[in-house]
């Protein structure tokens, strides 16, 4: 097969993979999903649209990453870390060391990717040609990107243009040298680097060198400018000299196959990993039993065998919260002035706790374990899917998760009230009650919320993959709302009342919806 044909095919594969990924991604978005036809992957218009996106991405990839990279180095050199009067030298110093690290960590030659797998293993294309074409193309992108971008940032820190222009061939040369070095080593002892799986030693070296790059300039220690420029020049010449090695090397197929088979076995492990991970949460202790019967029996055993993520974790959170409040109380006692200010703020600070309660809630872990370790299997049995059974178990589970989350909530509510009292208090005695009740309500809200969306959307399929875009969106929206609540300052009385009212109404509506709809929605996704 000719070079140009290999080139065309390799890009065809990459592009098809990307286009189909984009189409698949589109399908995951609710609403848009409904508009798309079943024969999505046949639709010419959509393919052209995704193809344009893919081409744009290819174009951007020449500049985008490198621009961010250089901007970061520039920011560090021009005042971010180095505060002296020679930012040009600082930039050269950082860039030189990072280039050295990058040459080995990202050689462009030893990166196992899916399109490589398709081309070399499945289509049995000429591995050497394929590897070299991909390599050459990436090198060209690197040269082009750096030739355009480095002068922009380099001139800003006062580097002469010829130095800026030298960086592109210097960097490419460094990469070529590193690649040639790896190939020599492969010929000698058969080892090759896997860039997706760095060892501890390599990570340590990377950290050390990156620290040298960024921290030394801060204390005024830098590689001399002439040395930097000279070395880059040497890299370029050296890289040129060893390009022949890369071109003549014959064993790309052996390396690629070994590298790709390793990648595939990792992927296989990853696909069942979520399930296995959740299975590990099951406590194997022999002493766990239950005297109850039926669904209560099932539930009690579940709760007891998942104490790691349920009661034990909730008790720990409660303990930590209690310690924090104790610390705060001591602090306020020692520094009454700061305390007074704190007390004043507390009166408008309640919305902040929405975010905190969001983080402390055990709901997501609970529903996940419920599915992976329990419902995933039991939902295949018809007795378990009877509407009565679903609703009975829902009410039991709701009761349990509410109880589990209430413990830390009670500690936080009591702690806050106490803090308010000690720091000067409120004129309205009802405020104390309001704090406790609204914190408890928030906790109940999150418990109900997670269990409800689990029962109404049941986002997983039989292979334990998350299949519902709507579920993901709701979780994200929940986070967003809670995050925004941090910015809100509302008087305690108003917020407390609104919060309680909202939680009560939400819980009522949610439970009503579950009782109406869950018998139909709570099943394995196809």
């Amino acid at each position, binding site marked *: 097969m000719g070079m140009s044909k290999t080139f065309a095919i390799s890009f065809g594969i990459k592009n098809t993979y990307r286009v189909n990924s984009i189409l698949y991604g589109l399908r995951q978005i609710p609403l848009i999903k409904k508009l798309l036809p079943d024969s999505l992957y046949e639709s010419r218009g959509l393919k052209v649209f995704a193809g344009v996106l893919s081409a744009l991405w290819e174009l951007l990839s020449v500049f985008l990453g490198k621009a961010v990279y250089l901007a970061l180095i520039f920011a560090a050199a021009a005042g971010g870390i180095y505060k002296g009067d020679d930012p040009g030298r600082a930039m050269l110093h950082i860039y030189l060391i990072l280039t050295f690290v990058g040459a080995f960590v990202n050689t462009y030659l030893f990166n196992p990717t899916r399109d490589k797998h398709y081309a070399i293993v499945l289509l049995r294309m000429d591995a050497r040609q394929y590897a070299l074409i991909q390599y050459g193309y990436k090198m060209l992108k690197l040269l082009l990107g750096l030739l355009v971008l480095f002068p922009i940032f380099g001139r800003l820190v006062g580097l002469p243009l010829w130095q800026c222009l030298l960086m592109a061939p210097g960097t490419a040369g460094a990469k070529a040298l590193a690649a040639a070095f790896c190939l020599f080593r492969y010929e000698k002892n058969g080892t090759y680097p896997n860039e997706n799986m760095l060892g501890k030693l390599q990570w340590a070296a990377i950290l050390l060198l990156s620290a040298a790059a960024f921290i030394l300039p801060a204390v005024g220690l830098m590689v001399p400018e002439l040395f930097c420029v000279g070395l880059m020049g040497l890299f370029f010449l050296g890289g040129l000299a060893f390009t022949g090695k890369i071109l003549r090397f014959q064993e790309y197929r052996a390396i690629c196959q070994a590298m790709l088979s390793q990648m595939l076995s990792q992927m296989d492990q990853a696909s069942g990993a979520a399930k296995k991970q959740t299975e590990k949460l*099951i406590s194997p202790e022999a002493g766990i039993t239950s005297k109850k019967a039926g669904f209560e*029996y099932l539930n009690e055993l579940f709760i007891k065998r998942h104490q790691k993520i349920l009661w034990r974790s909730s008790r720990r959170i409660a303990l930590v919260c209690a310690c924090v409040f104790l610390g705060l109380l001591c602090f306020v006692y020692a520094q009454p002035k700061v305390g007074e200010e704190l007390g004043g703020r507390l009166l408008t600070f309640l919305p902040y706790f929405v975010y905190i309660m969001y983080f402390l809630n055990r709901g997501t872990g609970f529903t996940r374990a419920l599915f992976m370790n329990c419902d995933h299997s039991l939902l295949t049995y018809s007795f378990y899917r009877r509407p009565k059974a679903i609703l009975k178990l829902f009410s039991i589970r709701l009761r349990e998760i509410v109880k589990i989350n209430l413990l830390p909530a009670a500690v936080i509510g009591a702690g806050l009230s106490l803090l308010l009292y000690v720091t000067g208090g409120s004129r309205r005695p009802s405020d104390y009650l309001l704090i406790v009740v609204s914190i408890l309500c928030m906790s109940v809200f999150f418990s109900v919320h997670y269990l409800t969306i689990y029962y109404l959307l049941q986002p997983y399929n039989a292979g334990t993959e998350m299949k519902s875009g709507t579920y993901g969106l709701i979780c994200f929206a929940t986070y967003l709302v809670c995050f925004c609540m941090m910015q809100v300052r509302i008087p305690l009385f108003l917020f407390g009342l609104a919060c309680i009212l909202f939680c009560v109404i939400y819980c009522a509506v949610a439970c009503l919806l579950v009782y109406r709809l869950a018998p139909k929605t709570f099943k394995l996704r196809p």
Partner: protein
Amino acid sequence: MEFVVDGVIKSFGKKRVLEGASFTFESGRIYGLLGRNGAGKTTLFNCINGDIRTDGGSFLLKEGEEGRALTAEDIGYVLSTPVVPEFLTGREFLKFFMDIHGGSMEEKKSADEYFELMRIAPEDRDKLLKDYSHGMKNKMQMLINLMAQPRLLLLDEPLTSLDVVVAEEMKELLRSLKEGRITIFSTHLLDLALDLCDEIVLLHHGKLEPVDRSQSDRKEFKEKIVEALREEDHGNE
């Protein structure tokens, strides 16, 4: 008792999988449901089990002249890959199941008697199900499905991944339990179907068809089945 499948239709998007499948299954017999890959065997089972909705037709259970719709209690459905709740022990799973079905189970045995029936060793009975081997999980799943004494027992490729000893045990068990119920066994292993089943039903072109076994020896019968399924090639074009 009879199980009547009447004109069942199911399509996914534009693809029609079941196109008016009709058949009457009789009590006390084991039916082998044969079909080529992708013929819709699992789809049919999922429709019977109520996992997916049909686009038309009905499933009826008939006793005498009276027919009634299937309920969840009528059906036992054994999947090809066994799934069991990992956080329970074998014994706990049995107890939970017996609690739920307390009233409706006709003959009650002790947990150990059930384990005995499935030849699950005493030392395994109190282990967590997550530590069971594939074959043992399969036995557990089968046991749970048999305990409720379903009138209709659906088995989707259940023996393919079992070792020879367990597979032989399972076959024995299925034969011994066939009285008083309808057993439908889906597979694409022809020999297995001929060994175990009293009748062979083909699923192709989205329809159910019996194959007449009388007056033909095993070899002729096999050829007949393969021939019937092969015709499908023309139908698809």
